[in-house]
């Protein structure tokens, strides 16, 4: 299991479009992927779960990946956060 904490850099936070992008990316990996914010842990492959996180600008999110391709998954998802979900 690997994990990494990132902060949200896009101003609008994780709304519908970035959330869709996030689950699409997460679904490409066989590892289980979880996102954690303020002690709340949700499945990174569920769009509704991600939206209920209320992941706003500058809030820290812990990404947890567990499985055979965990390293690759963690890296790809972190890159999404760093590139502001291709926004702005």
């Amino acid at each position: 299991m690997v994990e990494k904490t990132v902060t949200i850099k896009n101003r609008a936070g994780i709304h519908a479009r970035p959330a869709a992008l996030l689950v699409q990316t997460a679904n490409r990996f066989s590892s289980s992927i979880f996102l954690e914010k303020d002690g709340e842990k949700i499945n990174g492959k569920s769009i509704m779960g991600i939206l209920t996180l209320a992941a706003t600008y500058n809030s820290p999110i812990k990404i947890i990946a567990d499985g055979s391709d965990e390293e690759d998954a963690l890296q790809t998802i972190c890159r999404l956060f760093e590139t502001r979900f291709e926004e702005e």
Partner: protein
Amino acid sequence: MKKITVLDLLQLDLRDRDALDLKCIAGRSGLVRELKVPEINRPGLELSGFYDNFAFQRIQIFGRGEMAYLEKLAGEGKTETLEKLFSCEIPCCVFTHSQAPTEDFRRIAERTGCTVLQTDLPSSEFTTRILRVLSNIFAPKQSVHGVFVEVFGVGVLIMGDSGVGKSETALALIERNHRLVADDLVEIRRVGGNILIGTGTGVSSHHMEIRGLGIINITHLFGVGAIRDKKQIQMAVRLEDWDPDKNYDRIGAEENFMEILGVQVPYIVIPVKPGRNIPVIIETAAMNERLKKMGYYSAKEFSKNVMRWLETESAKAIFLSET
């Protein structure tokens, strides 16, 4: 496009408000003449001798006024204008109000091989009906491979590769009290500018081919309530085998369209895999489409609510960090 002859006009199977009540009263040899334009002409000017810009390729309609003039000509023994009229290649003449043409008229029509038709409708009503019928006949057409069903009043065209389960999906929808319009081959016509009407093709409509069962007759099996002759196409659905590498729409905030005969039709792609109940998904899509038409767009409303919520949360966080 297939040639449309005067005979085709007589043989059209029209009901109620479209019925033309036409019968042939002279010039049977002209039944093979082709109708080239979906238009009509009242030949008043031509009868009086003015032939500039004569729209001879149109169906010529003789109402009470034209008839009175023909009788006046007959009284005076004049036939030149009639000879001139029939020397043009007119497709056919129609007498309204059950009027019968004069003897001269009938004779010259027979000789020149031009059909004379009669209807008991008044001129204006006949004009309205024939224009409607002609615009339907001349409407742009296209045939599509798929199944066409009416789901909760929404005309849904289901397409997809052979064997993906179009007919089976339609069968399940019929079982759930929806209606079959056409199976396998759907004929689409564009009428009134931007309305797409889908129908079956003659003998095969309301029959379905189900692998393992063969051909079944939907009308006999499910009753007349389970079928429809024609319906406006309001939505297009493509069924395709689930492709794990393809991204399917997760939010639905963007509308997709498919162009059929130049008309944009709302279009969705539904991936098929075991465990996904396609009929129920199509039912839901149809209802969602109706909801959109009524002004409520679920995905967009949801997305807007999420945005608003994120903004308040963000404002709250900033406020807390400052104090």
